[in-house]
């Protein structure tokens, strides 16, 4: 993540969370936190507890984030933010906490007599991790049409690339089809889809991990070969080695939700994908 990208990330984050950006240059931005964001980011539970108990007037803090420190003007005091700095991790964490569940409608108002029909989609943005003594993650964005069961891949990018206008409330003169598939069965189908896909993938990584484990186990056995009664250490070591290399796959949902979209979106994707 480049410094410029971090800068715009911070700006978007604080604007979206209702914090006032008091000052902004190319190199830094000064933000007046809201009470909510202060509680989330500043880690001062005692202060907030005290204010709430005494009914005092809260004074949320103001922070300056320096995003370009190659040309840092020495007059500016603030926190230097880079990828990997604890503050940015904390903001990432806050964003994930607040951005988990969505429901939006395509902004296609109809007119009287010609109402827009919106189709329900269930979208899951997934992180798939292959874990042994090493690790690799994949991102997948899958969405199922809850009327006809079609599953569309790379859904999130398609939404954002096409700039589909989205609003939190159903637009005027529009109606939604009620889903034939319930959301929970949508989730189940997407999971099955992912599972099938994982099964088809190359898993030499797991085989290799098991080979490494076997090698270590063999050495351990040879070390205690001549010991009649194996000491406890042998069994402890064995268990540790087992766990160190044990391959597993986890699938976690980063975020997702319901999108009500017009026929247009469906047609765009019809040809390529079918579940």
């Amino acid at each position: 993540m480049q410094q410029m990208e971090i800068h715009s990330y911070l700006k978007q984050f604080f604007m979206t969370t209702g914090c006032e950006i008091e000052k902004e240059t190319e190199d830094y931005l000064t933000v007046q936190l809201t009470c909510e964001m202060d509680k989330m980011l500043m880690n001062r539970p005692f202060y907030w507890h005290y204010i709430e108990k005494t009914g005092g007037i809260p004074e949320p803090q103001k922070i300056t984030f320096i995003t370009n420190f190659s040309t840092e003007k020495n007059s500016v005091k603030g926190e230097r933010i880079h990828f990997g700095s604890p503050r940015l991790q904390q903001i990432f964490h806050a964003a994930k906490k607040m951005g988990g569940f969505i429901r939006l409608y395509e902004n296609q108002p109809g007119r009287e007599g010609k109402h827009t029909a919106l189709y329900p989609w269930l979208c899951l943005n997934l992180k798939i991790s292959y874990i042994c003594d090493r690790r690799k993650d994949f991102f997948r964005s899958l969405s199922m049409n809850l009327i006809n069961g079609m599953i569309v891949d790379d859904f999130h990018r398609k939404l954002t690339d096409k700039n589909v206008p989205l609003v939190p409330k159903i637009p005027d003169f529009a109606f939604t089809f009620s889903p034939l598939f319930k959301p929970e069965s949508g989730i189940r189908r997407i999971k099955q889809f992912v599972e099938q896909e994982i099964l088809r993938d190359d898993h030499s990584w797991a085989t290799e991990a098991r080979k490494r484990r076997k090698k270590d186990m063999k050495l351990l056995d040879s070390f205690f070969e001549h010991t009649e009664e194996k000491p406890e250490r042998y069994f402890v070591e064995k268990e540790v080695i087992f766990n160190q290399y044990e391959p597993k796959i986890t699938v976690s949902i980063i975020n997702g939700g319901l999108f009500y979209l017009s026929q247009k979106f469906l047609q765009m994707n019809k040809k390529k994908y079918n579940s």
Partner: protein
Amino acid sequence: MNVPIHFDETWEESFLTRVENDGPWSDWNIYNLALKAEKHLMIPSFEGLQAPKFLPELQPLPHQMEAARKVIERMNGKAILADEVGLGKTIEAGLILKEYMIRGLAKKVLILVPASLVTQWVAEMNGKFHIPAIAYRKNYSWEKTDVMVSSLDTAKRSPHREIILEQSYDFVIIDEAHKLKNHKTKNYEFVQNLKKKFCLLLTATPIQNKIEEIFNLVSLLKPGHLGTYEEFKEKYKKEKNRVNDDHLKELINKVMIRNRRKDTTIQWTKRHIETVLIDFSKEERELYDHIAGSRKQYGQIFNHTFSILTLEREACSSKEAVFVTLKNMLKNNKEPEKPLEKFIRTTMEKIEKIQINSKAEKALELIQSINDKVIIFTEYRATQLYLQWFLKQHGISSVPFSGGFRKGKKDWMKELFQKHARVFIATEAGGEGINLQFCNHIINFDLPWNPMRLEQRIGRVHRIGQKKDVIVYNFATKGTIEEHILKLLYEKIDLFERVIGELDDILTRLDICSLDEHFADIFTRSSSVGEMRVKMENLTAMIELAEKMKEAE
């Protein structure tokens, strides 16, 4: 495929409740920001290092990056890091730990280090690596702390020991791991019983005395890698304290990283050594000759704890140093015998006649011509005080420093020097005290006996991070014992022109304890200059031999 797939269920439950309750729903922007964050945090590949991306301010050196990659990709996170002194083993360890933490493979971490280094490790892990390490203190919980730093001595003691051995650690680091060379010790047994997936052992000297030492270290990491103890002993009994066998070398290299200075791409700045020979003033010469001449005359009256040689060396430094020693002699000897009393009285008289300190005058001249920060090392506290006063008379501000200061004071003095003073006057370079790479001029106002001490002095300045060549001025007074030390010992073994840490390696090959005794013997028990010379030549021959052994390796 035979790998279990685990689906996270928590999101689903939360989501379905929201569907039922018609909300609350996230904002579209935040939804996108959350996704963006998660995508950036994903690990795109089994191989390679993610850590540098998270640590843009660290800038590790190429050999450090290489070491980290090797440990992770080829050694499965179990390794001995045995770089030579000064190449940054801590950085390598930090990089590796960070990598495992980023990948979510290490959460519960234990770092065991010498007590004197606990604070430094905590500071480095937090400051350089953003790893939230905590130093163990009373009543801190071993169970609840994710990344704990403690001394091995504390950890192995009851009741800590029992609690620690119950924990399952993902990652264990042990600094100064040569303390684990003997498999019969409590330290060894304790570390052996730790539950540890990934483990790093840090030491600059993986083998000091016996070949078994490396066996013991490796068996902590990977029992069986070098066979059983009996097999190993039988097979390699001929190898005394070095590894010659190619097969064994290969095996060891599978679990050990040893970077040598010459293999790294670091551009070490040079050392320029200037010997500055100084003439005594007439009065100083008289004091020195008086003391040196008393060796025969008063020889027998001095007891073992005191040597006339000490006074000789002090006379080369400052009259103040001599004066303090004489005063202490009187204090410890309430009723001195006649000849001693006479010696002290006559020496005092000589001291009183001295008006100037020729070395100090020379130092002043140098400092004024250098026009940059300068560090002066002296062996004597009295000289240190005098120099501070003397420089002040000439409008030069200086900071006194001694090895006995506490950590906080050391840091404060360093900062004072860096920001406000021209000269830093230190009596002791010793230990892991202080790093002064922002300065590149050193004056050795007097010379210590033991060349390691001198190397440590220079090492404070000539280390990673030093951008300029280091210039060392060695002061020695003509026609004195100092000139002998300089000519016979230091110049002969090219001490000064060596690269950082090289001497360290050479001297480790000799028995370091006896080395100190050697010097003491040469300088305090030689009855003549001739004897001293012979003994010194023997010693330099030994050092040269050790050097050849190293080269042959």
